[in-house]
């Protein structure tokens, strides 16, 4: 553009920028545009207060390349979304979600859709600005007084002096032949700069630098060790207005937050007098028989098998051999503090009293936590019963079984 060459430092007699014609109606500027187009001019433009239908055709403006750019951007967005999800879901962060394949297209479609739209939308805006030579900080027409009405009720046509066909006299004659309301010569702008304001550039640079700070902090945190606890932006869960167990409570005289039951009272269902059933004790030692409340029948065995499957197999394994999934995983990770779960089919456990087994389940042993609070008393006995069956099955010989079950006759 011709105004690129102007020198704002040395104001002097300004060169001719172009000729500006003013029209009263959209129809007039359409007709004028067709004439200028047919006369073969190339560096000219029209300025109207609103979009005039048909002006592109009248000016001979070619179809824009923008749709192809947007299409390309949309397809890149699609490809980016597929690549991103394929890489994260199958390599970087494998996570099994409700048994679905790691890379499953239906779950990825929303991201594919969003990135397609995002890339296409942003590209449409940026490419439109670039194709229109925007932003344009100054233009010689800014100094033409009548041009202010181009945002109100007048239609303007400007032919630049830089056009190869431009000749001040003949171009003026051509413009006057299009029935304009006025024709005016426009001088070059020697006053203002067509460069972006420095403050804007600095502002953008500073904002960009600031915008990288969170990423820099995140990157630093990934490679640094810190002894201070994490920053919790939302403290709701950290400070709850309540007294926790084992804390002091000034409301009561004894200062305990956890209250004891009143003296000589027992809560409903908390009276556990039956030592056999509730603690597995009998005559001062471990009970060697099941308490009468436990019915030795199929239903109890089924219940025991089910509870065992839920609570015991993760560590002790399906067969009780101490090879559950948790144990296997811990071995794989070679955790130094890991104590392998006990093989429940060992001889000393086969001979252990049922009362003691019950007690172990209820109160835990070594690394094994207490399951008393989680499993109902009758269910714990059912587990003991199932465990006995497991132990017996493990110790049995194949000899004497019918061939169909793998025995030898």
């Amino acid at each position, binding site marked *: 553009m011709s105004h690129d060459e102007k020198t704002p430092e040395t104001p002097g007699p300004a060169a001719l920028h172009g000729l500006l014609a003013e029209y009263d109606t959209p129809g007039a500027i359409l007709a004028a545009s067709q004439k200028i187009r047919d006369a073969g001019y190339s560096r000219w433009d029209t300025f109207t207060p609103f979009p005039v239908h048909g002006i*592109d055709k009248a000016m001979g403006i*070619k*179809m824009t390349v923008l*749709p192809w750019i947007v299409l390309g951007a949309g397809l890149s967005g699609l490809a980016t979304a597929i690549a991103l999800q394929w890489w994260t879901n199958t390599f970087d962060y494998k996570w099994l979600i409700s048994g679905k394949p790691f890379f499953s297209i*239906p779950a990825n*479609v929303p991201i594919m*859709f969003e990135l397609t739209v995002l890339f296409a939308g942003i590209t449409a805006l940026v490419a439109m600005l670039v194709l229109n030579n925007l932003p344009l900080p100054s233009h010689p027409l800014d100094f033409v007084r009548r041009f202010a009405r181009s945002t109100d009720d007048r239609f303007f046509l400007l032919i630049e002096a830089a056009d190869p066909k431009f000749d001040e006299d003949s171009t003026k004659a051509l413009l006057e032949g299009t029935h304009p309301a006025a024709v005016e010569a426009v001088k070059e702008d020697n006053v203002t700069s067509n460069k972006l304001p420095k403050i804007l550039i600095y502002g953008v640079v500073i904002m960009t630098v600031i915008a990288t700070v969170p990423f820099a902090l995140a990157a630093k945190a990934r490679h640094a060790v810190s002894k201070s606890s994490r920053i919790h932006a939302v403290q709701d869960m950290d400070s709850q207005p309540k007294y926790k167990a084992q804390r002091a409570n000034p409301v009561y005289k004894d200062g305990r937050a956890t209250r004891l039951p009143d003296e000589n009272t027992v809560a409903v269902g908390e009276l556990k007098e039956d030592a056999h059933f509730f603690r597995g004790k009998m005559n001062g030692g471990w009970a060697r028989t099941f308490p009468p409340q436990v019915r030795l029948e199929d239903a109890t065995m089924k219940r025991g098998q089910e509870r065992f499957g839920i609570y015991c197999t993760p560590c002790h394994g399906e067969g009780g051999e101490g090879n559950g999934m948790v144990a296997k995983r811990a071995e794989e990770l070679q955790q130094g503090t890991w104590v392998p779960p006990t093989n429940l089919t060992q001889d000393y456990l086969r001979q252990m009293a049922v009362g003691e087994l019950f007690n172990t389940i209820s109160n835990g042993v070594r690394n094994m936590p207490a399951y008393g609070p989680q499993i109902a008393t009758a269910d714990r006995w059912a587990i003991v019963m199932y465990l006995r069956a497991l132990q017996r099955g493990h110790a049995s010989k194949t000899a004497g079984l019918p061939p169909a079950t793998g025995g030898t006759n």
Partner: protein
Amino acid sequence: MATAKKSSKGKGGSDKKDEAPRSAESKPSSKARVDDAALQTLVPGFSDNVRLGGEGSALFVKAAGVAVISLGIAGAMGASVGDDFRRFSHSYLVAFAVGLAVSAGFLYWVTLQHLVNSHWSVVLRRIAEVFAANAPVLFVLSLPIVLPVLGGQGLIYDWADHAKVEADHLLHHKAPYLNPTFFAIRIVFYFGFWTLLSRYYLKGSLRLDETGGAEIIPSMRRVAGPAMILFALTLTFAAVDFLMSVDAHWFSTIFGVYFFASCVICVHAVLTLSLIWLQGKGRLAKSVTVEHYHDVGKMLFAFTVFWAYVGFSQFMLIWYANVPEETAWFKERFAHGWGDVSWALLFGHFVFPFFGLLSRHIKRNKKTLAFFAVWMLAMVYLDMYWLVMPNVNETPDFHLMDAFNVLGILSALVAGAAQRAKGINLLPTKDPRLARSLAFENI
């Protein structure tokens, strides 16, 4: 690219020149007050042939004949299958659903143009009005579905069969809504409302032709708001009643919107084909320009995307949650060959037309736009087939009666539209917005 655009524009221009003189050939109808062949002055300095006249009568006779014969043949074929019309009923429901999408879609479109005070579409509105006025025709066509239900026959719908309802807890639970009497009452209400609304807009528009009084336009716009809400409700419930209740165990809250997408696709496809037929007969040759085709094409494109969006929303939630009572419906549609139909829908109903209709050159060319209009109608048919048919056929099997059914129903709609259009102007000649519609340009 620039040269491609110029050549397509050149074609558009030459088309218009070819069509203009042909209008003199058509014969005047005895009933019509105005000479059919007369070029009507629309706005100062602009005139066009806007009367269908004899061509309309001829089209009515042809289309009505095709409709009666096709449905007759389809019925005979249905009887020959020997399953008490079970297969035929499903085939008929598929065709009926396409007809419903066309008819209800046009009513939506007319209401929408009034609601938003649209200017560009004024030249197209009359065609939409006569198609929308087919609601009573469609009601008659719904009788082969509704009457067996009233008779307690579960040809399509298990919930219509008393014995099946008693044996099925879920059907029993849903019986307060899904029962023959209430179903019939609802159908009468839907078609009653659609008939009244379409009559209102057609009559108002015709009165505008006579008096030119613009004061009726704001009142039509005021009606459009509440009418649109009621339309949305009736269409949703109609889709649930006719189509979703085919498998009464299954449910999807987005189903009404899914069917609505098909309605809007049908509108713009049928509108395109009607305009091309009319312009081929020299009617509206100058009024409707490539700019109007372009906009209709844009809407066709937009709603193929909308269909995919809604269809996928329905699928993904069910797929992700993986709840048996919902997935059963999709499981049927991904087994025994129906999976191929599902994939065909994905590519034929979305991927292909999406890229096909993306370019403006295709939307501004009558031939390519007509191809996609026909293609999309076929895809809507396939969609309806996919919704209904797994209920009766474990594997997709095409029977010739399917083709006769859809030909019959669509011909009946064309006949109804032609009958209405033959004696009236093909565009609202005195609508004050007409001048802007005639001069409409996209850029």
